[in-house]
């Protein structure tokens, strides 16, 4: 068991280590080609329709972001296709009833079996876990590039849908 003055020495050396690491980290970041700005923009944003979206969402360029109410309305009309952008394991644990799983991280693997079922003019709503995930946004962008025109993103996602006690399903 270290004595008290020894403990002070240990703590001082620990601070020195932290300082050394941080200073070199910041220096390295300045000169590294993959360096990033020290002050990132990470807050969630609110669109003109008062929907909370992740920082990387670009209103105007990206497909429109919709609220829970809107998603629910579209769910009831039953014409809209809900695409779950999460991984199959999460999908199996529970998803919006009737949703189709098209994981963004495994897009190429699943696209060939899922996309033929969806007409390019059909209305699509993508979603993932909740506002902190971006899979729904990235999937929507991917589909936009493939020529799908009527895409919307439900950023509230699984968390909001389940939290509101709406229709869900577990399994495949």
């Amino acid at each position, binding site marked *: 068991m270290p004595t008290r003055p020894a403990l002070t020495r240990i*703590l001082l050396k620990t601070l020195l*280590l*932290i300082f050394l690491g*941080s200073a070199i*980290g910041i220096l390295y970041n300045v000169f590294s080609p*993959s*360096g*990033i700005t020290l002050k990132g923009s990470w807050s969630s944003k609110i669109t003109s329709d008062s929907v909370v979206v992740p920082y990387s969402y670009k209103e105007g360029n990206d497909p429109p972001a919709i609220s829970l109410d809107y998603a629910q309305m579209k769910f009831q009309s039953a014409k809209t296709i809900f695409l779950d952008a999460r991984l199959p394991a999460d999908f199996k644990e529970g998803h919006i009833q009737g949703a189709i799983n098209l994981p963004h991280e*495994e897009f190429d693997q699943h696209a060939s079996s899922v996309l033929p079922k969806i007409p390019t003019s059909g209305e699509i709503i993508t979603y993932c876990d909740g506002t*902190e995930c971006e899979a729904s946004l990235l999937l929507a962008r991917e589909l936009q590039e493939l020529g799908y025109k009527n895409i919307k993103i439900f950023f509230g996602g699984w968390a909001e849908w389940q939290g509101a006690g709406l229709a869900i399903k577990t399994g495949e």
Partner: protein
Amino acid sequence: MKIFKLFGQIVTDKRLMLVFRLVLGFIFVYASLDKIAHPEQFARIVYNYKILPPLLINIYAVTLPWVEFFAGLFLIFGVFTESASFLISFMLVIFVIAISINLYRGVNLNCGCFSTNPAGQKEGAKLLIKDFVFLYMGITVFFFNRGFATLSTLFSKKITN
């Protein structure tokens, strides 16, 4: 009683401490490399933890991997051994808290522990167990490392000679 004494000797054995030091040191150095190479992806993972205020995310993502790197390196060579093991244990406690908060929230997120790949580890509770094992190693090294096979003792011996 003898068996307790023997047990005590084994868990505080200086050679075991050396093994812990090397294992933990290499783990931390290894874990820092991918994060150092991909600060942007790592910052995104830190953001996903939803714990740090947005203003601190990038600074944390730029500095933490290097602190891990040096703490690991110092532990391997046995320079500032107590401080390095203390710092590593402290970081592990922070990681355990951060992972637990998100498990409690029901978010199974990408750990960002060893890899910044978005399809990487999502192992939740298993991760916590691993962290506790590392933490045990860190704490025992802090208390029972007696300078065995460290650069510091090597140098101080030279000076006294």
